[in-house]
């Protein structure tokens, strides 16, 4: 369902970015990059409140005609960005949330791996599989 999934580190560099190969990947990279501004904006808007009160799911960051960009930020300022095809009208907010939750869980599992140094690119096969499952439906 997702066209592109990206995990951005706290310092705003990508830990993991993957998009459907058929499309122009560069475009998605650019989209994700620009969406980071929106993410930061949302974070700062909420940031004055306590972290606990801040919602992890940021919702729709910005729509374009072709696709929509959703964002999610963790407590450690790791951001997940998901680009979804606009034609996928069946996608509801809840589904997006659940996808982000799955992403978050997988990311946590990656972090649990002692051989993973935070800040490295994510090469976990389990994580890949999970992302693939989210993206597969697009075809």
């Amino acid at each position: 369902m997702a066209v592109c999934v990206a995990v951005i580190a706290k310092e705003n560099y990508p830990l993991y970015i993957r998009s459907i190969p058929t499309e122009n990947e560069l475009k998605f990279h650019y989209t994700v990059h620009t969406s980071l501004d929106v993410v930061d904006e949302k974070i700062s808007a909420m940031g004055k409140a306590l972290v606990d009160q801040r919602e992890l799911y940021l919702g729709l960051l910005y729509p374009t005609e072709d696709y929509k960009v959703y964002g999610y930020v963790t407590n450690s300022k790791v951001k997940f960005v998901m680009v979804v095809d606009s034609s996928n009208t069946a996608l509801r907010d809840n589904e997006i949330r659940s996808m982000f939750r799955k992403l978050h869980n997988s990311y946590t599992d990656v972090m649990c791996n002692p051989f993973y140094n935070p800040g490295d690119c994510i090469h976990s096969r389990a994580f890949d599989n999970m992302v693939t499952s989210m993206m597969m439906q697009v075809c």
Partner: protein
Amino acid sequence: MEQGPGGAAAGGAGLLLPLSDTEQQRYSELFSLCCSPAPEGGSAPAPAAGGSKVGDLFRASQLPADTLHQITELCGAKRVGYFGPAQFYVALKLIAAAQSGLPVRIESIKSELPLPRFMALKNDIEMRYGNAAEILGVKFQIPHPILEKNSFRRSDEGDKKETKSPPMSPMCSPPASPSNYQRIPLSYGYGKSRSKLEQPHGVSYEARHSTHQQDGPATGNYGSKSALVHSSLSRFLSVESEPQDSSNYPDDPWRITEEQREYYINQFKSLQPDLNSLISGSVAKNFFTKSKLPIPELSHVWELSDVDCDGALTLPEFCAAFHLIVARKNGYPLPDMLPETLLPDYLQPASLKPKRDCALLDSYSESLSVSQQTRDFNRTELETVCEDPTNSEPLILFDVATSIVEPTSVEEMPDKSALTQDANSDDNQALNISTTTKTIPKDFKPSQHLSVKTVVQESNTLKARPRSRSYSSTSIEEAMKKGEEPPMPPPRPQKSHSRASSLDLNKIFQQNTQAVKSGWLPPPPALPPRPFVSQTEQVSEIELHPQMNRAPSQTEESSPMRKEILLTQPPSKPIRRKFRSENQMLENQELTPTSSVTSSLPAVKPHLPAQKQSSKQKRAIQTAIRKNKEANAVLARLNSELQQQLKEVHKERIALETQLEQLRPVTVL
């Protein structure tokens, strides 16, 4: 000679090696030929063929030397160090295969093969049965296995093809050798005709043989023996030395064998003594990093094995991870999904019982079997077995382990040299290292072809145990606690001065004191109230023992005590308490500088009445003393630190108070 049924060490090809009856008989005869002579030509305590005779026999097969070499290795004789019946039969079959032009592999011998030919064998040539199956005119020289048989045969000498006379291997006893020698060329000459001749003869002979078998115990033995041999053959040839009941798992490198499991468990213990708890991620990371696998692979292994994704490894998870790493080191690609045999549920070692299912056996087909052999027999035959994971699988020792194990690998230098022949590069190192561990023969279990793994793990166990023991007492507190606990001297007279000697010592050494003896007067006002009165048998109660001076007066004790007394004289000053009673300690510290060290105790000393002089107590006391000294040292350090802190705190307090006073009048105003 009988080859004990069980004597067939399960070293064979690891597959069911079908041997026809004729083959069996021939092989058994050949085997007996090669066996060292015994009184009745019976088996040696461990039936085995003498190496030299076997060598002669093999050379008689006229195969090239390296083929023979291969055969010996394949059959596992090198592993065992001798030719047991199993090895011998396998070797014979391999020779037959080689002579038939088949490659020397275990698979070759699965099929029906002509009997091996041995030329120029100086032994008796027994062209006994022309086996009906063999039509190739294979010539046989089968020595007479049983003395009785031979004698019986001798009686039948009328035959042209008579059997050789000497019961055992002709090499051993060449009684009728001349005739035999004659027979040899004769047999050669025969060729097909001979075979034809043999056949009827064989038949007749077999008939005789059977009747012969019926006669006499020996023959009966032989008959039963052949049956036994057959059964033993099939038995040992079917499965390796691995737990027979559990083996025969088809080709599953992901199963953990018992030895491996034990090894893993020992490694787990070395990291985490409690088998039911977890190994943290960082500890596991350090440990697995020693395997020298690349980090991404280790990361993947972790992902696979940490099923609950908690960043820590339980015992089954650890075993799975270790197993995956071992497999990877042996060249197996890491799977994408955790094999079900490695799942924690599957591996859950309820009481760590060995999972019988695990057997890396014939699974790998010949490579496996050979590897099994190599593993079992503490030799590596990697030349013939390429990339044999099972070979070194359990033996991948990380540097730590190897370093630990290496010192223990003392014996069996020849093994090491044999092992250095390993072909595999990567595994070589691991193997060489690990094989050094194999060299601990004493740990071989009953099953004689115990795989090296057990040796390894035994050694590791031996190693792990001390490690785990020492593991626990690393911290000071633990040491102190230990210091407290052990000295439960047998009769610690509570509140009695019976242990005067120890008491004295304790006081003198400022070490643990026993329960305060009643005669122990309360220390003079300078000394703060001591807790020991009620408390202790425990050691760590440390009191003020300034009384070194006193010690000499008292001791009828042995001189060591005196020495200790003297030694401890200098550090007599601080009052020490059980570390738990820190408050008191502080108090003591306060008082320590003030209270004079010596004073009061002298008064107390004389109160100690009887001095137990039983040597037992002395010894106990001495050990207690030692431990207490350690505790002492620790507490002394703590003491001094606390004293310092106290002083500082005092200064601060004073400073603050002065400040306060200075400020007060201001505010009041």
